[in-house]
């Protein structure tokens, strides 16, 4: 956690003083010992990578996140149906388990469901019909969609073999409007992830700017910015976000609401990053290489951007990675309460809104599944962030 004075004692004996050297300086540095030459001449990023590689869970997480990112980039390809298409005849269909092997051969299929109306409750009750299989195929043709708004196609990763006969599959069941939850989950990942990334991006800009000013210049500016951060951090975030998002005009388009929510989330989010940046600036300001740069007449901009920023860029990346899951959870909170994104926008929070009360969960427990997507993503991001944070300071 916090590096105390004992942090220095953990450095290997060959390092007499903590080495804080940026990429340029390391080239002219002479290795103090012959044995670990590769280690001493390696640039900062290489050391970080070596450290990071040792963190197994972080590596696994980054692979998982890569998959999630691919889904988020082209959710239509992974969907089996139009996520916004409602179907009054297919309400609350339960999960149709995907079977990959049929009689020992790779022939994916799902069992069909048959609905029967319960004469007492007048509700449709769905039964899995083991006698009827719906054959599936890879790269099947389905509804038309666009990848990143550019390429129009009808090809999906998986789909019923003969959609023209009205065959439909619901891998994760359907909701109260008969919309396919699997497809909605795929599409939701795009919004949920991108809102997290965008909000953190805005926070980084604000955080580096204000934290940097605060840490580099110090004095009155520092005092004012620090008080501002303290005030913002002592605010209860969720009521504040609720109040701000509720104030967004009802007639705003989906895109505008999306950006407004990102801005609202980063309004408080930047403070943590600003503190991190300020701390780093304060620590680096007195370092020899910064003093040297100042004495040799570098401009302030050059000192900050060329000498100081690269030294703690890895810390910023680690801190921002840890900030993304927080943003994702917060967006989920807001949308879950009905104050965040509004339909027809699809995010994981919007999906979970369907599971807001006991009745719907008892009736359709699969509506809780988008929560699992949130947990996996947040878990992976946290593990990745922890790995990066440990690797960010490879000299320790």
């Amino acid at each position, binding site marked *: 956690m916090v590096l105390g004075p004992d942090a220095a004692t953990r450095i290997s004996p060959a390092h007499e003083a903590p080495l804080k050297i940026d990429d340029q300086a390391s080239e002219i540095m002479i290795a103090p010992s012959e044995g670990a030459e590769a280690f001493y001449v390696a640039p900062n990023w290489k050391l970080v990578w070596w450290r990071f590689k040792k963190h197994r869970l972080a590596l696994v997480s980054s692979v998982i996140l890569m998959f999630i990112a691919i889904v988020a980039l082209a959710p239509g390809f992974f969907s089996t149906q139009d996520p916004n298409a409602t179907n009054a005849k297919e309400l609350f269909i339960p999960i149709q388990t995907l079977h990959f092997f049929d009689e020992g051969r790779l022939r994916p299929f799902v069992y069909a469901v048959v609905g029967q109306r319960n004469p007492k409750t007048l509700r449709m009750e769905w039964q899995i019909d083991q006698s009827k299989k719906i054959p599936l195929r890879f790269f099947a043709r389905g509804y038309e969609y666009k990848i990143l708004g550019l390429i129009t196609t009808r090809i999906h990763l998986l789909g019923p073999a003969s959609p023209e006969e009205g065959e439909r599959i619901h891998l994760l069941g359907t909701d109260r409007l008969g919309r396919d939850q699997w497809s909605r989950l795929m599409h939701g990942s795009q919004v949920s992830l991108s809102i997290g990334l965008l909000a953190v991006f805005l926070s980084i800009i604000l955080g580096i700017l204000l934290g940097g000013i605060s840490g580099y210049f110090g004095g009155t500016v520092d005092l004012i910015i620090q008080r501002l951060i303290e*005030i913002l951090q002592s605010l209860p975030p969720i009521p504040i976000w*609720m*109040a701000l998002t*509720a104030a967004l005009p009802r007639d705003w388009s989906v895109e505008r609401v999306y950006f407004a929510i990102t801005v609202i989330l980063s309004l408080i989010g930047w403070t943590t990053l600003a503190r991190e940046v300020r701390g780093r600036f304060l620590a680096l300001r007195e370092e020899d290489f910064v003093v040297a740069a100042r004495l040799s007449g570098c401009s302030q901009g050059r000192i900050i951007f060329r000498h100081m920023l690269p030294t703690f860029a890895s810390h910023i990346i680690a801190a921002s990675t840890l900030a993304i899951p927080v943003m994702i959870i917060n967006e*989920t909170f807001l949308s879950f309460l009905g104050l965040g994104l509004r339909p027809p926008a699809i995010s994981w929070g919007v999906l979970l809104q369907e599971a807001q009360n006991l009745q719907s969960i008892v009736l359709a427990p699969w509506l*809780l599944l988008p929560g699992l997507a949130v947990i996996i993503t947040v878990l992976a991001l946290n593990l990745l962030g922890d790995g990066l944070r440990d690797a960010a300071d490879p000299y320790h």
Partner: protein
Amino acid sequence: MTQYIIKRLLLLPLLLFIFSIFAFFVIQAPPGDFVTSYIAELAASGSSMDQAQIDALRAMYGLDRPMYIQYLKWVGRIIRGDLGVSLDWQRPNLELISERLMLTVALGLLTFCFTWAVAIPIGIYSATHQYSFFDYFFTVFNYFGVATPTFMTALVLMWLAFQYFGVSVTGLFSPQYVDAPWTWGRVVDLLRHLWLPAVILGLDGTARLARIMRANLLDELNKPYVEMARAKGMSEWKLVLKYPVRLAINPLISTIGWYLPLIFSGSVIVATVLNLPTIGPMLLRALTNQDMFLAGAIVLIYCGLAVIGTLISDILLAWLDPRIRMEES
């Protein structure tokens, strides 16, 4: 010490001033003013108001005057204890809030106690038994605790309780106690319902706190003084609890400052899912129905609770850590 606390107390009016501006902004945010919404509300319920009454109302709230005068009037009324009338409930806001405030605070404090009572022992155990089975177990548990949104925990537990035990865990009182006056039985009934929301709400915080405690204590355990005490034959149990734990807890005190506001803040969602009679669900309803004076008042109350939390943590920190006291004087 006194000087330090006075200094902190002097900051309060400034904070409250900023928060009140924010709450006022919340009230002003939706299009149209209070009286327009009120007239619409009346029209919806079939009654109406004559022009003289409308003008009187407008004058009372200063709606025809500049913004800062409206703000001053609003603050003036708050200081006199008048938080306005809820359009939605047709009752004074003060009454509505005070009914629920106690339960909100009780839930927050119980959550806080649960978090500390669980997180500190876990942190100590994990640090003293590093890389043991339970250390790994708690690490995994902590990661999941942080990654699971509180409402998910609430929903899943609600579902499990209903599915397997047939009980509904929503609300804070058994049916016979809902409108009953405060008796000993009602308090016991409340505590029997309150622990579950407190646990759900505290899970995330417990996970974070246990991790911080473990890391802090690990830093301390490697220090020479621990070795020294061990060499002198001090019992391990006493050794750990008496010195390193005390030092490791100190930084945690400063987390109260941001943790208490987070509890109150997070309780909004848990309370909404579990349908608890706290001010959280009321805020949500007020915001959805654009009952802005009530929403503004609740936001202000939340800010007030957060400020009190920060203040408590500052005072505790000064009391426990002599370095902070010295620095200030």
